[in-house]
């Protein structure tokens, strides 16, 4: 019997649920490992899991400063999609969606990936063209994309303001059917358990306070629980990248940390089926399995490590949601929170060997880290194991800025707050 299944649930229910094992062990750190992953978020845990599962590298430790999954894996709006414009992005995120589709099985953990679709609304002909360009790019890249007319949208998403008098009337929408939502915490826990069951040590409350060096080379880390040596050190601490790189003496880096707020309403009976994004502003909304409407908007637009948002952004987001769904005005905001985004200079991530010998870096996820979790872990594990990038992360170098090879989905250039 699989550790987790309907049968095991029944068996345990009959015995008072006393036999469940911890989802992951709580080991003390060993003095040395083959690979250390700094950062027990989604990407770090996925990396460890794939190192063990795909490359047979099991002498691995994941070091987490606080509680596991406490970064953006635990504070995002749970959307999974690959509706990108540029070929590099499409290739990477489509690969990720494919991994998502089998993830619950692979991990024997229900991450509740639900392909409910993501619909981007277009409000004028120019915006429609831009979305169609993107949808066509997705189709040419091998992915799925459909264009919906206003009538089709009306059937799919009741409650949207589709009147001609709307300030931003809907002219159509780009639907990616394979996109959807997943249970974010379950992804962290599932990967943690998957890694743990394959022998990886997951060490919580273990803050990296410095890097051990042999000349230029990184040979381990100092932590709040002692020094730990490793042949390779992977860093996957999006949100804190600059802080951790600082410990390695890297003081300037193409990353800014910004706060992004997210919101959830009170739980409701099913209200909206797919993920909807509003083109008249920056807003996206979906509904969780528990019933809360989950939504978010733009960054707060200034550097922050505070996980604490500000009021004008709250008001902007609420205005947009009311413009999109006029009935939502009557519903109530239950909770808001902030996550710290690793905003890169072109909006695309960095997954690379380096920048120091013995170090491997995974960062710069901007808004897009959650959906990337499987592909990020997969390709980062590959890069660490083989010392060269996988085809999907080959463009995500650090040197691309100096070479003039930015991967700029929005076209906003080196203004991180706008990506």
């Amino acid at each position, binding site marked *: 019997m699989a550790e987790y299944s309907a049968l095991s649930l029944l068996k345990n229910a009959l015995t*008072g649920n006393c036999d469940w094992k911890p989802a992951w062990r709580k080991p003390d750190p060993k003095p040395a490992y083959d690979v250390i992953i700094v950062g027990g978020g989604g990407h770090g845990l996925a990396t460890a899991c794939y190192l063990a599962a795909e490359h047979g590298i099991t002498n691995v430790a994941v070091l987490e400063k606080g509680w596991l999954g406490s970064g953006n894996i635990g504070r995002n709006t749970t959307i999974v999609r690959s509706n990108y414009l540029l070929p590099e992005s499409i290739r990477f995120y489509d690969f990720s969606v494919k991994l998502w589709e089998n993830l619950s099985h692979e991990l024997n*953990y229900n991450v509740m990936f639900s392909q409910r679709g993501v619909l981007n609304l277009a409000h004028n002909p120019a915006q429609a063209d*831009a979305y169609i360009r*993107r*949808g066509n790019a997705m189709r*040419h890249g091998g992915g799925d994309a459909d264009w919906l007319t206003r009538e089709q949208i009306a059937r799919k998403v009741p409650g949207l303001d589709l009147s001609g008098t709307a*300030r931003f009337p809907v002219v159509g929408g780009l639907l990616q059917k394979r996109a959807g939502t997943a249970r974010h915490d379950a992804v962290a826990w599932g990967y943690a358990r998957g890694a743990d069951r394959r022998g990886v040590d997951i060490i919580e409350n273990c803050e990296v306070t410095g890097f051990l060096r042999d000349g230029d080379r990184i040979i381990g880390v100092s932590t709040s629980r002692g020094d730990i040596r490793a042949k390779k050190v992977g860093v996957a601490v999006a949100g804190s990248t600059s802080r951790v790189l600082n410990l390695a003496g890297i003081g300037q880096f193409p990353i800014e940390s910004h706060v992004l707020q997210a919101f959830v309403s009170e739980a409701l009976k099913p209200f909206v089926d797919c993920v909807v994004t509003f083109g008249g502003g920056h807003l996206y909304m979906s509904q969780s399995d528990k019933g809360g409407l989950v939504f978010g908007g733009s960054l707060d637009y200034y550097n922050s490590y505070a996980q604490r948002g500000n009021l004008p952004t709250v008001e902007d987001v609420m205005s947009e949601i009311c413009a999109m769904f006029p009935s939502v*005005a009557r519903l109530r905001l239950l909770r808001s929170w902030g996550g710290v985004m690793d905003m890169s200079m072109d909006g695309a991530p960095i997954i690379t060997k380096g920048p120091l010998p013995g170090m491997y870096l995974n960062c710069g996820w901007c808004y897009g880290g959650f959906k990337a979790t499987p592909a990020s872990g997969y390709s980062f594990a590959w890069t660490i194991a083989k010392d060269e990038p996988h085809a999907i992360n080959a463009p995500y170098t650090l040197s691309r800025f100096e070479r*003039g090879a930015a991967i700029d989905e929005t076209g906003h*250039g080196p203004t991180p707050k706008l990506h």
Partner: protein
Amino acid sequence: MSPRRTTSGGSIDRRRTIRFTFDGEAYTGHAGDTLASALLANGVRLVGRSFKYHRPRGVFSAGIDEPSALVTVLKDGVREPNIPATRIELHDGLRVESQNRFPSLAFDFGAINQLGGRLLGAGFYYKTFMGPVIGPLKGTRFWMFCERFIRRAAGLGRADYAPDPSRYERMNAFCDVLVAGGGVAGLMAAEAAAKAGKRVILAEQEPETGGFAKWSNETIGGKPAAEWAKTASERLAALDNVRLLTRTMVWGYYDGNTLAALERVGDHLARPPKGHARHRHWTIRAGAVVLATGALERPLVFPGNDRPGVMLAGAVRRYAGEYGVLCGDKTVFFANNDSAYQAASTLTKAGGHVAAIVDVRPTISEAATALAAEAGVVPLTGQAVVETKGGKHITGIVVQSFDAATGALSGDARPIECDCLAVSGGWQPVIHLASQAGAKAEWDETLQAFLPPAPNQRWSGAGSFLGQMTTAGALESGRNAGLSASGKKPSRARLPEVEPSPLEIAPAPIFEIKAPISATRGKAFVDLQHDVTADDVRLAHREGFVSVEHLKRYTTLGMATDQGKTSNVPGLAIMAEARGISIPEAGTTRFRPPYSPVAIGALAAERYGNLKPNRLTPMHDWHVEHGARMMEAGLWHRPMIYGAPGETVEQAYIREAAAVRRSVGIVDVSTLGKIAVKGPDAAEFLDRVYTNMFSTLAIGKARYGLMLREDGIAFDDGTTWRLGEDDFLMTTTTANAGPVMQHLEYFLDIVWPDLKVHLTSVTDQWAGAAVAGPEARKVLEKCVIGTAVDNDTLPFMGIVHGRIDGAPVMICRLSFSGELAYEVYSGAGHGLHVWEALMEAGESFGITPYGMEALGTLRIEKGHVTGAEIDGRTTARDLYLDWMLSKKKPFIGSGLMDRPGLIDQNRIRLVGVVSLDGQPLGGGAHIVEQGSLDALGQSIGHITAFCYSPALAKYIGLALVKGGKAQHGRRAFVSDPLRKRFGPVELVSHHFFDPEGRRMHG
């Protein structure tokens, strides 16, 4: 045996009867009632169903902390779900429905979930529904199939899709001192600050100030406490420097002492007056804040603790004291502290009957014993409730001896009959706002509660928020906080007198009675709304979800609409015990805004239904009157076409564009960004920001300019006019007017502060009309006076000043269309006047107004680029504008524009596209070298703009294609799978029409 109304007492207005319905059934209550008190007064105990197990639930609290009695309010033709009955003021016509039940509240199919209790524990969903690995339900299908049913069962209330007709508004306020909470401490603080001459705002979430004083039956200053509070409140309301806001909850504490509050202006009215808001969202910038937000009572955790009739002791007290409602005929109190004895006393005084007091402590204070005696009972000390009896409401309890030190139960289980069980597990200060403000709460061993952290913004605390649980403490700390917020020292003046309070409010450290649970006893709930049990907490512990955040996420503890107001601390205590550590070691969750749910419409209020303002040109009304179909361009509205009856969009723009090439057309270009660039260094400045030279431009001439970003990517283009030696008028694209202005201001303020240049946005100062076509000059000749417009006076790129029909105009000979063309600028207030004069002058030439579609057609024919090509990723070279990159001087972007990746010939670059099958091309379509709709080829680029060209009589477009110029003459295909279009095209030069520019120079 049921709850009922007393014959007298309380502060409700018994002369005013109010009618309301609950689940369609008609009831009455009195003015001053909440829905909860009125339902209880009517003997209604079953009010809702719980989230997961659909267990019957009743009113549990008397305030904002209510976890169980959630209802849907039907008003204004819309549904408002999940509103606590304890927060709804009774008013005539109130209609309310219970929720999360089917088909009815009393008989709910969902209750079947209770049978699967152990199966449905914490983490249940993560361990199953992964589905088969093969077959039609593989992948995500099986989960999605199950999810449909799970979603229907989950959720609480049902929302509808009818737009909310209510009005909401925002109010900005400034004050020296904001007092959050209008209980005794808050009233004292506000008065002290007001007397110190400060501008004060006092916000109280309830309809009346007073807090506990309203129902405590104590005296303050020799008067009944309720009366004292009323007088204090009236005194404050009479002061000019005090704004007293009731029904106003401060819900968010943001940076820089900015606080957010929600005033429920109209919820208690049957119908708000015309134009008045339902809710008002206050943003308050406070010099200092006094947090006097009080404390909330905690329940105890024991089997069956969720049955209707199990309530908080403080709530039972409030219903008796304030509403004249007895929550039962036979009430048992169950406590670990003395506050339950005050409640019992109040209940007795109101005419209620106390059946027993069960206390987990082995000994209790004399004062408590005395209060018990007044209530006619001897407290059952050292005992605990281990079971409740009953179905849809409580009918009795079972008690057993309890060892407070070990938690062990012993001896006989003794039943006690009752219909209400009033529980008190101690008090938790409402520290949410302080926690939001930034710091971590601190555990207090004595009070067994989290106390507010040391302030890290300008706030001070007062009253039970600080753990000052007595009225005397509230009076004193309130006054001191008010003084301190006013920058004054604590006062020694006499405070109003109160009775001594020898009671022991600090509780024994008991949170849970661990009695074996069973089907009949019921589960021991921690979070009543989300059905999280003590066993769920222990299961989370067993599976390693031990950090408080993991506990919360794994079990959903504290994540319901009440945000764990009654459950957070007990949950934490149970986890701490399981881990064998102290509560502060186990941690506390961080509180996030809002303190309690806030209507989303209230937060959006200030937009007035218009997310973005409409920006209109001076000729807007004319366009609309003349059949224009308007389209958005950023905030602007511009004519897309001027449709004649029966014309399609395509027919209209072809007609308009053809008219321009044939005779003359006119288009509104007022939306172009315009910036006055003035000063002795203006020319030097322009040399630095444009890639090409402007210092060499002659006065009275214009030049086309291109700007790059610092990273060397093309940013914006436009013409800049030299009106004088030190006076330029820069034009930008419509979309980039704001960003360009900001870009220029940044460089002037930060990079080149030594340059003497002033910038002013004059976009709105000028109306612009472009007159284009072979007959354009003749039109101007007919109406312009004060200047000639011939080729010598007004050559290409020349500027002249004159008048049209009395209005001063400035005319520049510019061409976007490739025709002989002029931009006629006039003061915006004269724009329509000049436009009409031009129309009249052009009448004999068949002047045709044209819109954006025709404008686009004309520019595509000429191969001019716009935002579709300058899309933030293209370089000047990609667009074949390298001739504009001056080699004589550096400019913004010159440092990085030559990076290898940016000069790669194989980048996607500008080409022209001609449709070879006579079909339209489609914006956003891709270009492929081979393939079909069924077997999509590899994309080598995309179409940025297309049109039917009347001049060339075919469909043409602009595209960005790999290799650019090298592809000229090549065959390829347009591939547009989203619109199911695939067809042959030829890639050609983007200069389709009159490449030498003879016509515009003509």
